[in-house]
């Protein structure tokens, strides 16, 4: 990593007395507005994130003059404590209902105490992005949110995600099944073998194959727009909409970046945007949704990362101004 300023391993404790671990990056020429960026852990992949995405983000943000703290939530990475779940889906589910909000507040307290930072930009991928949003609901020191691949649904071993697929997801699944079973494909026998030997998920196959017919019979497409007051009937996270509305209502700014190929983008559109279009309309200038063409959930390819990170930096410049370097103290030799 080049130009990411000084990096210092740090530890601090959360409200339960558990020691959290992070790397603090201090820019050579910091801004003078006391704003820092928290890179919130996406979960198991800790303060580094998939393919070291958080180091690449850090490099960009430090170049803009922001101190950046990327740290591990309790029970993950090098932090103390345990995440007690035995299944990943349940760990993701616990993250989605705010398990790590307290750790995020502890990180802000640490940065305020030691670095003098009084306002924050919460940034992160997936569960980290959602943790930032939920933390912002509790703590107004978070002024902006930079969210990559933010989930609007709840995971968990008790949730059958295939039962709650969006129309777009069912169409893609249907196309994949149909394609695999075409007789003229050279490898079609593999698809048929899986189908006939019980290795196909029949409920999903039937639901996707008959989805167009079922949709016509029910005379409905996507779920109708609502005011968000009623609890969702599917696997949508009930905490998401109220947190997002609170965030916008308190004049804060959000950038939501998705990969075009990420199922989370389809879920965001179908299970949040379309349902809350009316409620969101007055806040159109407070948030932006940016979609990186073709990109997947973790922005694997370099061009996807470049597109997403460029947009993140533009957002920061737009809403937090260009660099305001603090005066450099001159020491007499």
């Amino acid at each position, binding site marked *: *990593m080049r130009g990411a300023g000084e990096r210092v391993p740090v530890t601090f404790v959360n409200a339960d007395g558990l020691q959290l671990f992070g790397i603090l990056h201090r820019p050579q020429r910091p801004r003078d507005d006391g704003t820092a960026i928290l890179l919130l852990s996406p979960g198991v992949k800790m303060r580094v994130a998939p393919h070291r995405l958080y180091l690449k983000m850090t490099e960009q943000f430090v170049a803009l003059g922001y101190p950046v703290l990327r740290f591990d939530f309790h029970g993950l990475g090098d932090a103390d404590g345990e995440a007690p779940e035995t299944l990943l889906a349940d760990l993701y589910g616990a993250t989605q209902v705010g398990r790590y909000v307290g750790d995020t507040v502890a990180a802000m307290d640490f940065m305020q105490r030691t670095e003098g930072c009084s306002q924050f930009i919460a940034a992160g991928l997936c569960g980290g992005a959602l943790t930032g949003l939920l933390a912002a609901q509790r703590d107004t020191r978070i002024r902006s949110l930079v969210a990559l691949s933010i989930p609007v649904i709840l995971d968990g071993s008790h949730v059958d995600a295939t039962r709650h697929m969006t129309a777009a997801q069912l169409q893609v699944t249907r196309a994949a099944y149909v394609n695999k079973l075409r007789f003229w494909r050279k490898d079609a026998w593999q698809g048929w073998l899986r189908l006939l030997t019980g290795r196909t998920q029949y409920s999903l196959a039937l639901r996707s194959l008959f989805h167009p017919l079922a949709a016509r019979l029910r005379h409905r497409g996507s779920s109708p727009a609502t005011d968000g007051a009623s609890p969702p009937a599917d696997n949508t996270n009930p905490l998401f909409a109220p947190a997002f509305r609170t965030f916008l209502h308190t004049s804060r700014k959000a950038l939501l970046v998705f990969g075009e190929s990420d199922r989370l983008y389809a879920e965001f559109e179908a299970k949040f945007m379309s349902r809350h279009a009316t409620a969101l309309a007055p806040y159109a200038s407070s948030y932006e949704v940016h979609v990186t063409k073709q990109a997947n959930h973790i922005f694997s*390819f370099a061009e996807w990362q470049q597109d997403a990170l460029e947009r993140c930096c533009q957002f920061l410049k737009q809403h937090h101004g260009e660099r305001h370097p603090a005066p450099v103290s001159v020491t007499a030799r």
Partner: protein
Amino acid sequence: VTETPFYFRNGLHGLFGVLHSPASTSTGEVFVFCHPFGEEKLWTHRVFVAFARRLAAAGHTVLRFDYMGNGDSDGDFADMSLSTALSDVRCAIDQAKALTGVEAVNLVGLRLGATIASLVAETAPDIHRIVLWAPVVDGARYMQELLRINLTTQMAIYKEIVHDRETLVRLLERGETVNVDGYEIALPLYSEVASVNLSAARKQHLGGCLIAHVDRQERPSAELQQLAASYQASTLTFAQEEPFWKEITRWYRGAPNLFAVTETWLRAIA
């Protein structure tokens, strides 16, 4: 038990490490951990942390660290090769010896990290015992598996293979990088790892060697048997665990069976 995070230098790059030190009485045994490759490193991080903490609680000292271009260390992943990783492990061994005053250390490696540990032990006289968890024995096959990940991403995004495996290798040979799960692999890493056949030669390492076959079910592994036979003093054992270096349904914060067989072996030959 104390955990001290710090950076140490190998040439131009700072390497990130965590030193786990025992609380009171030390056994004098020092372990350096060699992490696996790419996303495998991230999936297994907590298992490494958990095992380091167990060893430290038992009175041992452990140094975990990240190779250049990996984790929290400096450098770009695309500049990593097998040579740079071997150099980094060598540097970490020297660091551990300097910090603790011991003359020889033990290595613990997982997957490609186990392969690296085995290779380092062949040239270093200051390695006492080595623990190889699910080592990558056939480097060429491993690199093919990584290229397959690129193909899978292409299929998921473009619904077709735009660059087949042969084209990807040609791109590498032309000096370009190939993306595997977001990591840019360059030719040095590809060619150096692909040339590794860990069981081919008779080993020079005279200390103890534990080779752990990690699998859901116990079944013979010819390549691990061959690897074990290439050592002068080795133990091949089985640990029933999920392949926790991949994305699986279970959340692996420890590998109790693998830890147990390793600790039993360490006690037995202490």
